[in-house]
């Protein structure tokens, strides 16, 4: 009886002590959330751990630094200077050069479906200044002649463009920002976090209860409804990026024109997809602040949206890059690649039919 009582007492005291330490140290409870408007989107940094506040504000500073470095509209940015250099070579620095090299790689492997030189065409549609118009075919043909990776010359941190060609790194800037933030989280021993940069998400670690982060994919047919999802991803240490035509568009004479321009036609991509989500593992040992998996997901989500279902799945099957896909089609299907099928949850009330492909 005494032994039993002593054991019970010890057990209860341990429970009590655990409660105490859980409350005082508890990295799970030290949570910081900040919201930032930058790069034309809303960013939400939710980090846990002793240095969560520090990490959040470092992340904000980093995003602002990248915003002014990579802006296409700020006359003081390197990109602006390069775009208006009239063909002359400009010292863009190691970082921008590295990003341009990454962009060139994705342009090559996607057969031009991702292309940073599409910028003047996007502007012709008014998506840069938000004064939307439908450009004439003649105008588009003229601009398309200056689109393509062959119009960029890179050498020793310097870059030059064919006169008239302009670049916009907006298609990978947020992905690159997520790579940079991953390094900040790593350096500050952040155990868990969700970093949301518009259509780019970094799910770092797991939830405080030990289960994966739940990442909802916005339903493209109900884009403004905060409770409408095409699916739910269960992610631990992963990047996820969604590209969709519903994110920015305008209507003219009864037709809808969205902002993802197909470099092959100069027109908004009409590939039968309404959104593409690219998911890839974030290996903490490989996080080093250079363009990495986050950048890749950002570039590929745009490219695969332009390519359409068939070509996108062919590209995924080629295994050139390690990632998985969730495709939402115009005809009401959600196509999930088998590598992520176990981490994907269907939403019954969404009305979609779900398929897993291999």
């Amino acid at each position, binding site marked *: 009886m005494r032994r039993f009582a002593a054991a019970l007492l010890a057990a209860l005291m341990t429970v009590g002590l655990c409660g105490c330490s859980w*409350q005082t140290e508890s990295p799970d409870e030290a949570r910081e959330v900040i*919201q930032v*408007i930058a790069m034309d989107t809303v960013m939400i940094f939710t980090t846990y751990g002793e240095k969560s506040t520090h990490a959040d504000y470092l992340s904000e500073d980093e995003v602002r630094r990248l915003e002014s470095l990579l802006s296409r509209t700020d006359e003081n940015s390197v990109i602006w200077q390069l775009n208006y250099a009239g063909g002359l070579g400009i010292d863009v620095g190691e970082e921008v050069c590295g990003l341009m090299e990454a962009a060139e790689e994705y342009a090559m492997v996607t057969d031009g479906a991702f292309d940073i030189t599409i910028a003047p065409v996007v502007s012709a549609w008014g998506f840069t200044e938000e004064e939307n118009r439908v450009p004439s075919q003649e105008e588009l043909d003229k601009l398309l002649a200056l689109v393509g990776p062959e119009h960029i010359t890179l050498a020793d941190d310097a870059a030059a463009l064919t006169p008239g060609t302009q670049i916009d790194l907006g298609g990978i800037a947020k992905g690159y920002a997520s790579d940079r933030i991953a390094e900040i989280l790593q350096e500050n021993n952040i155990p868990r976090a969700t970093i949301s940069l518009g259509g780019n998400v970094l799910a770092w670690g797991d939830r405080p209860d030990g289960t994966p982060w739940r990442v909802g994919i916005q339903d493209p047919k109900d884009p403004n409804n905060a409770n409408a999802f095409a699916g739910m991803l269960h992610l631990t240490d992963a990047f996820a990026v969604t590209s969709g035509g519903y994110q920015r568009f305008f209507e003219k004479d009864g037709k809808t024109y969205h902002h993802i321009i197909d470099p092959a036609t100069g027109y908004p991509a009409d590939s039968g997809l309404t959104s593409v989500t690219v998911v890839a593992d974030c290996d903490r040992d490989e996080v080093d602040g250079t363009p990495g998996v986050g950048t890749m997901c950002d570039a590929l989500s745009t490219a695969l949206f332009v390519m359409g279902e068939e070509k996108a799945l062919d590209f995924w099957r080629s295994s050139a890059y390690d990632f998985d896909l969730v495709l939402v089609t115009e005809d009401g299907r959600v196509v999930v690649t088998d590598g992520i099928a176990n981490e994907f949850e269907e939403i019954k009330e969404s009305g979609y039919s779900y398929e897993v492909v291999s």
Partner: protein
Amino acid sequence: MKLSPKLQPCRWDGLVVLLVVVLAAACALAVWSRGTDTGELTAVVTVDGVETERIPLKEFPDGERTYSGNGYTLHVRLEASQGETGLGLYVAAADCPTQDCVHTGTITRAGQSIVCLPARVIIRLEGGTVDRDAPDVVIG
């Protein structure tokens, strides 16, 4: 082995043991239960990156509150009988060009937000009951 009478547990010893057990259990309970309490559902408003207001939905006035930024004004109202807590917020009207904030509809649980990019206003909900099945973050 036979214990000397002095070492035999008496009634008072039992009482002490009971007291300690009850105290330990009470302490543990107090600590554990506090961990799951996330406070009441609160709207956090930021304008141009600065937090300007933190107001529990219960204290939100029945009429409306307005938030202004960058020359635009949002009229925010409380909606009853929405979601688990029975309260939600929505933008009833705004003079911004995109109207995305109006189209967002009603937000009812922690983590959801209404964003007006032109006005640089973000209204985000925190606290309240935690729904384990709700998404932590939304992409797209």
